[in-house]
């Protein structure tokens, strides 16, 4: 039966592909198929059809590696997983209907063929979904690493003065990183004043405030002063309403003022040079 199916597909490849493309174009929710250039689409469709048949003919191993390549390509094109599973189902349906029309499938072998089709389609679908989820998992873990890399570095701006710009959401993991980098950096740069810039933090709730207060306390313990800068007006209002006590902090609205203050603490200031 497998051989029969494969032969039918190979003999009617062009017709099957064009039918299939027609069906896929009608999938309303999916626009990725339309934006693909004609040539590339035909090539991909053929590749897809070949992949579908290779499962019938080749050994499982050869098919697996082919499938992986294909799935990765499809992911790159940005086809959604629903679209791909639909594509697989449609392909199966078209072949089945075609074979029925040609009389290859009749009342006598109907049951046998539907079983055979299931055996053909199901593993393809399963392994496609598997490849998809693996690709996603990899993307997510890479992004996590990327996020960690842009987390919190302490930048020395002047002698004894360092700045840590905080950007984005602060969760428990990042709060821990911030604390580590802060203490590490203060010691390494011999900073006397550290400015924590929260301009890029979208929401300051009690947990974020709690982490900031803890970080500042720790900085004090290693002998430096901590200043909170970049407090936007709406954040200032929320902090007050929440009832968070930042009285022990020196805070400023902008990093610029913070730097001026930090220089004053270390007995320096910026002066304009009179060029004669």
């Amino acid at each position: 039966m497998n051989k029969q199916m494969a032969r039918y597909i190979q003999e009617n490849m062009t017709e099957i592909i064009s039918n299939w493309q027609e069906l896929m174009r009608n999938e309303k929710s999916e626009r990725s198929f339309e934006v693909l250039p004609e040539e590339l689409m035909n090539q991909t469709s053929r590749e897809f059809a070949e992949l579908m048949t290779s499962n019938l003919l080749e050994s499982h191993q050869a098919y697996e590696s082919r499938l992986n390549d294909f799935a990765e390509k499809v992911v790159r094109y940005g086809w959604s997983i629903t679209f791909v599973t639909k594509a697989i189902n449609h392909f199966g349906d078209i072949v089945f209907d075609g074979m029925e029309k040609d009389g290859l499938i009749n009342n006598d072998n109907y049951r046998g063929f539907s079983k055979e089709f299931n055996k053909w389609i199901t593993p393809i679908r399963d392994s496609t979904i598997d490849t998809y989820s693996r690709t996603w998992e990899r993307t997510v873990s890479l992004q996590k690493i990327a996020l960690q890399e842009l987390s919190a570095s302490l930048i020395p701006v002047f002698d004894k003065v360092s700045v840590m710009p905080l950007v984005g959401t602060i969760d428990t993991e990042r709060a821990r990183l911030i604390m580590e980098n802060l203490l590490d950096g203060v010691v390494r740069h011999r900073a006397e004043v550290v400015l924590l810039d929260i301009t890029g933090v979208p929401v300051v709730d009690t947990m974020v405030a709690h982490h900031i207060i803890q970080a500042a306390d720790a900085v004090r313990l290693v002998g430096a002063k901590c200043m909170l800068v970049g407090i936007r007006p709406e954040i200032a209002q929320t902090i007050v309403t929440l009832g968070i006590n930042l009285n022990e902090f020196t805070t400023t609205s902008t990093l610029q003022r913070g730097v001026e203050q930090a220089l004053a603490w270390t007995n320096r200031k910026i002066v304009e040079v009179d060029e004669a």
Partner: protein
Amino acid sequence: MSNQSSVEIQTEWDIVAARQLGRNVAKELGFGTVDQARITTAISELARNIYLYAGQGKIEIQRLTENGINGILIIAADSGPGIPDIRKVMEDGFSTSGGLGAGLPGVKRLMDDFKIETTLGEGTDIRATKWLR
């Protein structure tokens, strides 16, 4: 009239999703930046409470219209352990987790209306509303 959407809270990142949803709705309703910050912070507190104390639950955002005034309703529902002493958690500075203890009383101050219902062993349901003035 109400129009609702919700976010399941299961991981720390769902807190971000919940407040993003809240911020978008608040923006669409025409709240100013200060009120947007208040609403997102309130959602953040409530979602974090679910994550910390109940493990999982749901944040629901509804648009309200009452007497011609628009508003936003946050519903934080979980089936966690419940709160033994409501009066205590509504006091400033009370915390069982070593935090600041400003969460719930803070949310109450950030929003216009605040209702809390809790049953030990069954869960907690908090409703907080902010009206657009």
